[in-house]
């Protein structure tokens, strides 16, 4: 029985390391910061999660399994939040998209002068000339 658990945890650790290597290759080869984040966040979370699961299976103690599950849940909760925050900051900072990107959903709905993100596109004149006090109150 312990032989089967050994094999399973070895396979989990190896696959996790390979996922981490894939994500680092994606970090180098992708042309754009947004694609880089989409390549790295998911693959690294999966890789580290499987490595921790293999460690928990190898030790077979309650304390180790609890710690591994806590780290896995924390990573799965915080990795998308961090990626979303950095992507939002990069878009607002004016990092350009890849020139072969097809769709830009936020195009036209973010005002780069006042730094306000509208829920609709402000094409008409009345939405561009919002009163300054109102936008400043909203942003803070």
């Amino acid at each position, binding site marked *: 029985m312990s032989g089967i658990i050994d094999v399973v945890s070895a*396979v989990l650790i190896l696959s996790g390391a390979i996922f981490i290597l894939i994500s680092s290759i994606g970090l180098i080869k992708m042309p754009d910061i947004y694609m880089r984040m989409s390549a790295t966040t998911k693959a690294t979370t999966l890789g580290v999660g499987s490595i921790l699961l293999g460690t928990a299976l190898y030790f077979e103690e309650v*304390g*180790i399994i609890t710690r591994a599950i806590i780290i896995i849940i*924390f990573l799965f909760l915080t990795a998308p939040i961090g990626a979303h925050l950095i992507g939002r900051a*990069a878009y*607002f*900072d*004016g990092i350009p998209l890849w020139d072969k990107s097809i769709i830009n959903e936020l195009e036209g709905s973010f005002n780069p002068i006042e730094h306000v993100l509208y829920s609709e596109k402000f094409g008409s004149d009345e939405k561009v000339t919002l009163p300054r006090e109102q936008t400043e109150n909203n942003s803070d």
Partner: protein
Amino acid sequence: MSFVEIAIFISLPIITVSMLIMVYRVAVGPSLEDRVVALDLIATTVIGFIAVYAIISNSTTILDVGIIIAMLAFLGTTAFAYYLERRSKS
């Protein structure tokens, strides 16, 4: 050698090489956001390294370091994102 030891001796160099590749992105990265993404990735990879190292050294308490590093990485990413958004506003 058991299967787990063979897997460790293969996976530790793989993790180290991928961390070196991430350090290359930190050094080269064209914008500050690229560097923040790469640093967050390095901190996440260090957790996996610690989990593998816990098997080698046969010490179970080292996984607490992983919890602390996960929390610190998320805190640093949030602070950097807040700072970058504020910097672009002014």
